[in-house]
């Protein structure tokens, strides 16, 4: 398996070399062989000892190209590629959707307090598109790029979940 780890430069390769039985494996990580013993495993996570060091990993989401893990409490994203033809490197901290994406998404769940634009309006990157309320706090959702608001997917007084699309900007 080849992959990139978000926020970490370089490409990583890993494969199982040998199954020693009794839940023990020899695993090769970037050309270095290490012993791995699985203590527990189910669909939600795995606990293992890798070269004498214990790790607890939760599998949050996984697909064919991407895997979200929590490794010893640290959230990490792996981008899996059979052939790595693209460098995936992203800074820590928010970041938000890339500038080319259509959809402006909510990064928190909440109640829609106000919407600043109507469909068809033009908007600049960083302008407040709507205000959400969650936990007695108001949070402004800002446009992720310049453009025209193609559609608004929320209503005042309604609620949004995390990652719900708020508006489409093109």
């Amino acid at each position, binding site marked *: 398996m080849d992959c990139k780890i978000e926020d970490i430069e370089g490409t990583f390769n890993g494969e*199982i070399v040998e199954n020693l039985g009794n839940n023990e494996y020899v695993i090769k990580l970037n050309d270095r062989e290490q012993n791995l013993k699985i203590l527990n*495993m189910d669909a939600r996570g795995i606990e293992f000892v*890798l070269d004498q060091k214990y790790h607890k990993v939760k599998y949050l989401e996984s697909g064919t190209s991407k895997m979200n893990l929590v490794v010893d409490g*640290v959230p990490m994203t792996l981008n899996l590629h059979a052939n790595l033809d693209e460098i995936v490197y992203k800074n820590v901290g928010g970041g938000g959707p890339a500038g080319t994406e259509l959809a402006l998404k909510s*990064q928190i769940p909440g109640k829609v307090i106000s919407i600043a634009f109507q469909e068809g309006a033009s908007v600049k990157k960083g302008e407040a598109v709507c205000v959400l309320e*969650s*936990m007695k706090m108001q949070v402004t959702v800002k446009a992720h790029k310049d453009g025209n608001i193609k559609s608004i997917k929320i209503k005042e007084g309604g609620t949004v979940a*995390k990652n719900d699309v708020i508006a489409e900007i093109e």
Partner: protein
Amino acid sequence: MIEKVLIANRGEIAIRVIRTCKALGIKTVAVYSDEDYNSLHVKQATESYNIGEGTPAKSYLNQEKILETILASGADAVHPGYGFLSENPDFARLCEKNKINFIGTTSNSMELCGDKMQCKAVMLKAKVPTVPGSPDIVKDADEALQIANEIKYPVLLKSVYGGGGRGIRLVHNDKELNENYDSAVGESMAAFGKSAMLVEKFLEKIRHIEYQLARDKKGNTVHIFERECSIQRRNQKLIEQTPSPVVDQETRDRIGEIVVRAAKAVDYTNLGTAEFLRTDEREFFFIEINARLQVEHPITELVSGLDLVKLQIDIANGEPIPFKQKDLKMNGYAIECRINAEDTFLDFAPSTGPIPDVTIPSGPGVRCDTYLYPGCTVSSFYDSLMGKLCTWGQTFEECRLRMLTALNDFYIQGVETSIPLYKTILKTDEYKNGELSTDFLKRYGILDRLTADIKEDKNANKEAALAAAVIHSEYFKSRVTSSVEDSTRWKSQLD
């Protein structure tokens, strides 16, 4: 004597109050909104009553409904916790009228503490130093100018009705004051429909230092040392500690006497907190009395050995404070980290949802007050405080190291938390050296350091992540080939 207490609150503070009541053999009544039926305080109380919808206004702020529940349950006292109705004089008065023992100060002194202008006037009379400025509203720009020159620039022009930065101006000289006076008035008029301007000294690089105080119904008054709460975000405390690195015994005693005077000046009863700003020039200015049990009371418990909720109940029962000022000795050091459900990098935006898994730290010198348990939910209806992690140490360094270990052990799945931020803060030299100020985060570029720390953590864990991914993919493959039924179940579990 109090025999049954209704706790008009939720979350960790409701649990905290229930614990002391249990140990004292006092029955407890929990109240809960529709959102909280599965909360820990509901499960731990002797009795639990549903009081309405999730929205605070329809449950935890609903005075009539709470009064009705007090009467229905036969509770003879009510503990308001913090937030919600805890500093609402109308509710305290409602309890007084109905002969219910409100565990806190009287409605009258609560009202006085809540009225900043009136309180400041009382404190000035009692020779309690307050932030230099106009003793009352100023009538025009000329009067403002005169006061500004007395207390020295920079000063703040503030509308009494101001808030959220509106109706407020920072000015550095006569010219700026004259230029800004009218616009500040105008902004206040526009925003609040009225205006009344104050002048106040603008303080830079300040520390937030507060004193725990206690006063019984006979008027015996003590202070139970200071807490430094300078590490804040958006004026909300994040990390507190006691003793403060800038308070020596002489200062502790000297300001302590002022605190006792302040408590007497407002005829305070029960436990409260006197808050001060402390400048780099070592001046202390009183700002307000919080008329309730404070979130950060556990660190005072850790260094004093007192159970402050028990002390509250004793005082509410009319008993005298069972010790004198001179009997109180500070023992060791304590730190509290407020474990918030929030995303540090999204400007501390709240993060809510179900918590499938949680590991609560423990060990020598570790105390964790929390409502979390595996399977609980962090609701978006209430504030983001999920718990309070406190450590005690014989030395400050022991206390700090225990906190770092406990923060590492604290695992909360499902929401973003302030834990990584605290780990970064506690590792800085500035924190270790006690160089604290209310702008600590910005002053020392903490978020950039956090970003660097997270990157380092990721680097340290990259092999483990890769190994987990490899095992996952192999396991998945083996399942697919071994049995169709198995792989289906596996996939559905992944969804």
